[in-house]
């Protein structure tokens, strides 16, 4: 098994794990974690495929895409977390502060 | 030489996997945090070894970033997590 195949298949599995988490976890934070997990799986597939020929340096295009993806993922996560906070904090404010 | 370096890197990875048991078992939030901090140190060591073993000096920069940012989770945790250990929302004591 070549490293490329190994990591690419792991990426596929991680994507599925994230997908199942998105469906099966009730907690909203868990869903945000799931989306992150699925995203990491996709990144792993991309970067693994960038390195198909072991002798030459890896293909820069998928790497640049993943780099962009990581930064976009963290901002999307922050938006999701801000929404989550808004949801959890509004109703609970009056009784006990 | 390279065989030994990569062997040690592999050994440290196994160490990390063994250390995961502590994150798993807790029992308190602090134990879990501490274990993740430990992975930061071990991860730095693995990166330094890989940099030498794979002759890719750029990996040392990754190790540098690891070393710089390993404490951030712990610092955020202790500065934001409520100290009071109450019955319900117990912060450090987890009821298993």
């Amino acid at each position: 098994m070549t490293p490329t195949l190994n990591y690419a298949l792991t990426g596929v599995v991680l994507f599925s794990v994230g997908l199942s988490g998105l469906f099966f976890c009730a907690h909203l934070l868990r869903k945000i974690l799931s989306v992150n997990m699925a995203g990491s799986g996709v990144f792993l597939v991309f970067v693994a495929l960038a390195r198909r020929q072991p002798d030459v340096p890896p293909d820069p295009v998928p790497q640049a895409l993943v780099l962009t993806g990581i930064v976009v993922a963290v901002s999307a996560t922050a938006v999701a977390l801000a929404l989550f906070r808004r949801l959890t904090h509004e109703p609970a404010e009056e009784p006990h502060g | 030489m390279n065989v030994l370096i990569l062997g040690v890197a592999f050994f440290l990875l196994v160490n990390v996997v063994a250390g995961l048991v502590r994150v798993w078992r807790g029992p308190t939030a602090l134990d879990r945090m501490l274990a993740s901090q430990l992975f930061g140190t071990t991860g730095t060591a693995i990166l330094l070894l890989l940099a030498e073993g794979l002759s890719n000096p750029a990996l040392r920069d990754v190790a540098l970033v690891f070393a710089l940012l390993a404490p951030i989770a712990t610092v955020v945790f202790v500065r934001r997590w409520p100290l009071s250990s109450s019955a319900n929302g117990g912060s450090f004591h987890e009821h298993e």
Partner: protein
Amino acid sequence: MSTNDLVSCVSLVLGAFFFLAGTMGMLRFPDVYTRLHALTKADNLGLGLLVFGLALQAESWLAVAKLFLVWGLVMLASTTCCHLVAQAAWQAGISPWSRRDGQ
């Protein structure tokens, strides 16, 4: 094998041993205060030995400087984190393990 390589090998193996000791401590010590030792003592010593072993193999002085910088930073960080975790544990009312509790 030159003396340089030999010293390097011994240092790497010793470093790996201390990492193993750190992990064992993490897993087997009874409470959070004792487990702090694994973080701050064993692993930092292990990292130091690895850094020393790798520095003997490094290709340039810049690489050596970077290696030692990494070690210094990790020591600084784990010292601080150790302090913070211990303080947080104490303030949260976790009492240190003593032999009597353990029995």
